[in-house]
C-alpha cells in the first residue's frame, strides 16, 4: 500500500485535472474559502493599511493648509485691529490662502551630517517642485527648496546659516531677520530699545517674495541685552526638524502669480530709478 500511495495521489490529481469545468468551479468555490482565507485576509488588511496611510497623508495635507490659513487669518485680524476705522478693511485682509490641493507632500529621504540644515526630498520638477519654493509642516515653516532636480530636491532649513527669513513679531509688528548661528537660531537686527518679550510669536513677514506672510516660525526664548547696537535674541523654533519625516511644498500655480508680481515690482522700481535716484536706497 505504501508503495502505491504516491500513484494514488497522482491519479487523484489527474482526476481533478480532467474533471468537467463546471464541477471544477463548484468544487473550487467551496474550498477556496478555506484555502485562500489567510492570504486574502492579510492582503485585504494590507490594502486597508495603505488606504489608511493615504487618508492620513490627505488629512495631514488638509491640516497643514488649514494651519497656514489660520496663521494668515490671525495675522489679518491683528492688522485689522490696528487699522483705523475709516480704512477699508478688505484691502488689509486680502491674503493668499493656500488650499490642500495646492500643497505637495514630499517625504524626507536624506539629511546632511547635522541632520537639520539640508533635507533631501523625493519630489522634483516633475511634481511641480521648483527652486525657492517654501517648505512647511502643519506646525510651521521648515525652509525653502534650494535645488530642484527631476525627481529629487534639496530643502534648506532655517537651521542653515545661509538662510535668512524676514520675520514679524505678532504682538508688536517689529521686523527682524532670523538666522542660524551654530546650533542656535537668532533674531538679528533688533534694536536695544525694541519692545520684545520672552514668548512672543514670530511670523514670516512676507518680504523677499519667497515665504508667504503669516507662517509661524518660532517663539522668543531668551533676550540678552548687549553693549552693541542690537539685542541678542534666541529663538525657539516651533518645528522640530528631527521629528518630521515629510514636508509640504506650496505649489507653483500660486507662486507663479507671486513671481509675476515680483517681476512687476522690479519693473516699477526700475522705472522709478530713472526718475528718483533715491529709490535705490529703498530697494
Amino acid at each position: 500500500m505504501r508503495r502505491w500511495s504516491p500513484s494514488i495521489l497522482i491519479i487523484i490529481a489527474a482526476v481533478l485535472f480532467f474533471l468537467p469545468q463546471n464541477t471544477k468551479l463548484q468544487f473550487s468555490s467551496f474550498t477556496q474559502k478555506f484555502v485562500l482565507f489567510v492570504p486574502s485576509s492579510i492582503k485585504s488588511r494590507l490594502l486597508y493599511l495603505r488606504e489608511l496611510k493615504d487618508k492620513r497623508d490627505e488629512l495631514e495635507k488638509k491640516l497643514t493648509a488649514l494651519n497656514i490659513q489660520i496663521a494668515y487669518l490671525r495675522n489679518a485680524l491683528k492688522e485689522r485691529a490696528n487699522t483705523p476705522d475709516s480704512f477699508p478693511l478688505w484691502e488689509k485682509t486680502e491674503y493668499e490662502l493656500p488650499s490642500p490641493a495646492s500643497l505637495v507632500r514630499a517625504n524626507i529621504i536624506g539629511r546632511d551630517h547635522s541632520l537639520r540644515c539640508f533635507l533631501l526630498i523625493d519630489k522634483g520638477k516633475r511634481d511641480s517642485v521648483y527652486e525657492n519654493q517654501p517648505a512647511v509642516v502643519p506646525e510651521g515653516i521648515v525652509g525653502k527648496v534650494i535645488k530642484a532636480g527631476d525627481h529629487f530636491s534639496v530643502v534648506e532649513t532655517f537651521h542653515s546659516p545661509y538662510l535668512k527669513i524676514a520675520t514679524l513679531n505678532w504682538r508688536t509688528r517689529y521686523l527682524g531677520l532670523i538666522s542660524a548661528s551654530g546650533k542656535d537660531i537668532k533674531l538679528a537686527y533688533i534694536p536695544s530699545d525694541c519692545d520684545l518679550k520672552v514668548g512672543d510669536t514670530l511670523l514670516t513677514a512676507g518680504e523677499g517674495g519667497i515665504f508667504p506672510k503669516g507662517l509661524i516660525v518660532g517663539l522668543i526664548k531668551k533676550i540678552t541685552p548687549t553693549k552693541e547696537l542690537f539685542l541678542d535674541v534666541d529663538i525657539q523654533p516651533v518645528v522640530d526638524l528631527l521629528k518630521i519625516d515629510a514636508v509640504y511644498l506650496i505649489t507653483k500655480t500660486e507662486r507663479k502669480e507671486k513671481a509675476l508680481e515680483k517681476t512687476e515690482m522690479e519693473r516699477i522700481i526700475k522705472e522709478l530709478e530713472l526718475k528718483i535716484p533715491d529709490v535705490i536706497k529703498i530697494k
Partner: protein
Amino acid sequence: MLRDIEKKEISPLYLILTFILLYLFFTIETIFPFYCPEFSLIFLILSSLTFSPLIASLLGFFLGFLSDHLLPSFFGRYSLFFTLLSFALSSLKNYLIPSYFYLLLILFFSLLLKGLLGGFHLIKLVLTLILAIPFTKLIRKITHRTFFAP
C-alpha cells in the same frame, strides 16, 4: 546519507511544520504575486530531495492543490504537475549529486515547466534563481534535514 534519513522515522510534528512552512510560502507568494520569488517551489524541491516519495508526493499535491485555487478554471493542473515533480525528484534523488549547481538546474527546469502551465514572469524567475542558494542555506539551518544536510 539520504537513505539514512529515509530509514529514520519522521516525527509527525516535523511533517506538520513542513506543511505549515509550505502554506506560509504560498501565502507570501499570493500576497505579493509579481515580485516574490517562488519560495514554495524551492522548498518543495528541497523537501522532495529529502523525504520519501510518499511524503514528497503529499507535499507536492498539497502545494498544487493550494496553487490551483488561484485560477479555478484550470483546476488540477498544478496538483498534477507538483505531485509528479516531487514524486520524480524523490524517486531519482539517489542518482543526483548534492550540489547547488544541480539544485539550480532542477529549479530552472521546474520553473520553465511551471511557466509553460501558468505563464512566465521574468522578475519572479530571476529572483527565484538568485535567492535559491541563500534560501536553501536558511532552510538547512532551520530544519537540518535537507538534501544538503551534512
